[in-house]
């Protein structure tokens, strides 16, 4: 599914990613953990194609195709989805309208006709029921006045609508209380399948109680310094990041 080789990236000439290697297969969930400033969010932005970052070396291959030079929307069309740590507000644009535009732009890029309105409505109904989202919520302006929990649920709703191959959840647990965390995690679990893959980026082990990873990687100072199974997350929780820092 995703193969990252020797990825180096910098922002304003400051190197942040210093040679990342990562292999993610379909059906897998990978967790990326690490202390503040280790490059976790940079990695997700670079995979999604944010232009502020310059890739200086290495490659990002999605299903056999190097996507490193593609525009962010083209990567999205190929099935990359990023759940943002801080989703932005777009006043006056409803969640429904936003999703309709996103889906139809993807279809257009693939040479397909726009999705007929009745199909769109059906899809919206299906996905909102799956994630237990009140449909009134969908006519509100995108993220405007949303609580922290609502914003993250909205991200997962978008993920459900767009059905990505690779979903990156960037600190989806930040700002959530335990109930909201459970709801969001349940949503992600419902969307998991043998055909897609998920990368969970987080500080804390607690999210991983709900979204159980197949692999855990520890990012420190722009490199993956340790990889293991889900037990690595517990070990980290127990020993703290100082354990990693002292070893590197």
């Amino acid at each position: 599914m995703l193969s990252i080789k020797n990825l180096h990236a910098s922002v304003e000439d400051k190197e942040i990613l210093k040679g990342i290697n990562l292999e993610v297969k379909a059906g897998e969930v990978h967790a990326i953990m690490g202390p503040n400033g280790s490059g976790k969010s940079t990695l997700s932005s670079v995979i999604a194609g944010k232009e502020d970052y310059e890739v200086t070396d290495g490659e990002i291959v999605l299903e056999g195709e190097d996507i490193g030079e593609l525009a962010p929307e083209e990567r999205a069309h190929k099935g990359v989805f990023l759940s943002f740590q801080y989703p932005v507000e777009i006043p006056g644009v409803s969640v429904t309208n936003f999703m309709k535009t996103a889906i139809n732009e993807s279809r257009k890029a693939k040479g397909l006709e726009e999705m007929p309105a009745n199909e769109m409505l059906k899809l919206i109904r299906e996905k909102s029921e799956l994630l237990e989202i009140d449909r009134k919520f969908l006519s509100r302006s995108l993220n405007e006045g949303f609580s922290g929990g609502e914003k993250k649920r909205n991200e997962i709703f978008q993920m459900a609508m767009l059905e990505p191959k690779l979903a990156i959840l960037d600190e989806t647990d930040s700002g959530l209380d335990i109930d909201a965390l459970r709801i969001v995690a349940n949503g992600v679990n419902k969307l998991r399948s043998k055909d897609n893959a998920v990368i969970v980026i987080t500080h804390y082990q607690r999210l991983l109680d709900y979204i159980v990873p197949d692999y855990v990687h520890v990012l420190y100072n722009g490199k993956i310094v340790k990889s293991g199974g889900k037990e690595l997350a517990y070990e980290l929780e127990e020993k703290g990041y100082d354990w990693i820092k002292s070893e590197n």
Partner: protein
Amino acid sequence: MSKYTEEELKIELENKEYEYGFYTDIESDTFPNGLNEDIVRAISLKKEEPEWMTEWRLEAFRAWEQMIEPEWANVHYEKPKFQDISYYSAPMKKPKYNSLDEVDPELLDTFKKLGISLDEQKKLAGVAVDIVMDSVSVATTFKQTLAEKGIIFCSISEAIKEHPELVKKYLGTVVPQKDNFYAALNSAVFSDGSFCYIPKGVRCPMELSTYFRINQAGTGQFERTLVVADEGSYVSYLEGCTAPSRDENQLHAAVVELIALDDAEIKYSTVQNWFPGDKTGKGGVYNFVTKRGLCERNAKISWTQVETGSAVTWKYPSCVLKGDNSVGEFYSIAVTNNYQQADTGTKMIHLGKNTKSTIISKGISAGKSQNSYRGLVQIASRAENARNFSQCDSLLMGNSCGAHTFPYIESKNTSAQIEHEATTSKIGEDQVFYCNQRGIPTEKAIALIVNGFSKEVLNKLPMEFAVEAQKLLEISLEGSVG
């Protein structure tokens, strides 16, 4: 594929020609350049007007001669040379058509290019179209349906001949000949325009619409519109414009007067897309318009406008809330790009008791443009319990444009409640990236954000107009994020 940057997009779009920039070669009957009493008389004669109308025009002309062009607006431009303009131009053939087959095929072709062919318009259920092309109305449809209800919808020239008592009674009552420099000029030389009268208690069954188009090189356009809604009646009027591209500046000084008698309601919507000049600021239409409505008791007037065109715009659709309990509304989207300058807003003059007004203004500036909102809310001493709510939002794109707000409030009655809110925001790169990540390309993302910003006003437009307006916003702002 390589990264398609915003910079590249911007360059591509800057080089894009004005979409409606073409020129129709129809034989015209054009007056020599210049303006004097003889020209004013000649216009009146050409239009076979009665003596009182000629006198009315001359009065306006004499007043205009004494007036000075106003300079208080926040716009900078080379003043038009009024003696270098031809003040009359009409298509040579002045036929009355019963069917489209009789219409000059070249003219039909023009409409087709504009995407507003009569064919389509006829099919658009409920829309009667009175097309003003180069000053003379050449086609009017749906007239019969309207006539059955006693509604008069025709060119102002025709109204002067056929309904002199109505024109005489109302023309110049809201915008007097001497109101301002451009209104005086218009009163002297107005070529044509539309007239609409809705009888007592009648609800106009369809949206009335007029498409304006400047077509003759170097010809100033001086449209005159008069809408009278008699007691208890209702009408929704749509006005839309596109213009061919030209090198020299074209002057447009229209006057629109609305009269809503007791319990009447007028909804007046405009989509304005005059040629804005090219990307260096060359050419483009000067749009100096006077629009004003008068509300009698319990009457309501709503102005809704989407302004995307013109090099220079100077326009303040206003309401005089004379009658008790009358309501005035102003909903506006003004978009400026490249070197466009717009100074636009409204005046709400509260004279009657319990009068209410609402102002929602959305200004969007891009490129090196300047966008100003200028509004006056005036509460007279006898206007007990008057209320106003004003909201002015500005959206900026890039770092070279400007947004300005000049709200004037004058209250002479302590019972008045006046609220004013203003915001300024910028399209963020984060917003664009968020959209990109969901598969929405930058250009479409900007359109989406702008439409969201303008939604409160777009919602006020009649359906078919709203779609057109959304497209216009997209065309006007493509590639302008920086």
